């Protein structure tokens, strides 16, 4: 009988395993209201919000849709939008 051992096959597998598909809601930014304060970036538990150019943009490949950014945004610039699955 062949016994196989559990092991991490290779590093960096999260790059392949995109976890964004799990979410029910995605954050939608209204950049007219957004003041670039960066609170969303600070609070995001997945660290998927980053400033690209002059805007904060969530990486939807990994955003789990928790809505913390929308809850913490002082300007209410983020609304959670239902994902069509």
């Amino acid at each position, binding site marked *: 009988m062949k016994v196989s051992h559990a092991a991490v096959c290779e590093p960096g597998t999260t790059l392949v395993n995109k*976890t964004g*598909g*799990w979410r*029910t*809601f995605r954050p939608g930014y209204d950049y007219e209201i957004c003041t670039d304060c960066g609170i969303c970036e600070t609070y995001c538990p997945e660290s998927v919000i980053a400033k690209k150019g002059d805007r904060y943009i969530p990486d939807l490949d990994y955003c*789990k849709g928790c809505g913390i950014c929308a809850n913490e945004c002082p300007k209410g610039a983020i609304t959670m939008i*239902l994902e*069509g*699955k």
Partner: protein
Amino acid sequence: MTEKTIEIRIHGRGGQGSVTAAELLAVAAFEDGLYSQAFPMFGVERRGAPVFAFTRLRCEPIKLRSQIYEPDYVIVQDATLADVVDVAAGTQPKSLIIINSEKESAQFEIDAQCRIETVDATRIALDVIGKPIVNTILLGAFAGLTGIIDLECIKNAVSARFPGKIGETNAKAVQVAYDLVGGAT
């Protein structure tokens, strides 16, 4: 209900309540006069990872203890799982796959010979319960689509498992899903 054993596989993501759904289905079936089993199969036990749970129903005592390999019914709690795992694995032409999705069943590219039905359980959950928890709702849809288990038995099982307001709203959502799929036809 025939002499045949009825086997159900529930696909979900860790934290979605697949195991609870399997147990509720077993409890409801038992109340409806059947013998029943429910058991989970975990892969990686973490939130979001694909998990399976199984329910086995029969008119007579069940001696079989194996995992379910050829399900008569498959319930898929998250439509994106259809891209990740083979939800049609082991299904036969007579099987039925129920998917939580707002899309039409024809839009799913699933390699299966059997019937596929979709129910927008997330929408019902948000409307009735206020949270995207769909397990009980899919049981209502299951009762409506298959007619195997009495709707009242499912509602009773849900109310008993979640006492108070949560049970009430879930039972209501079960009814909505049952009505949406057209009841037992």
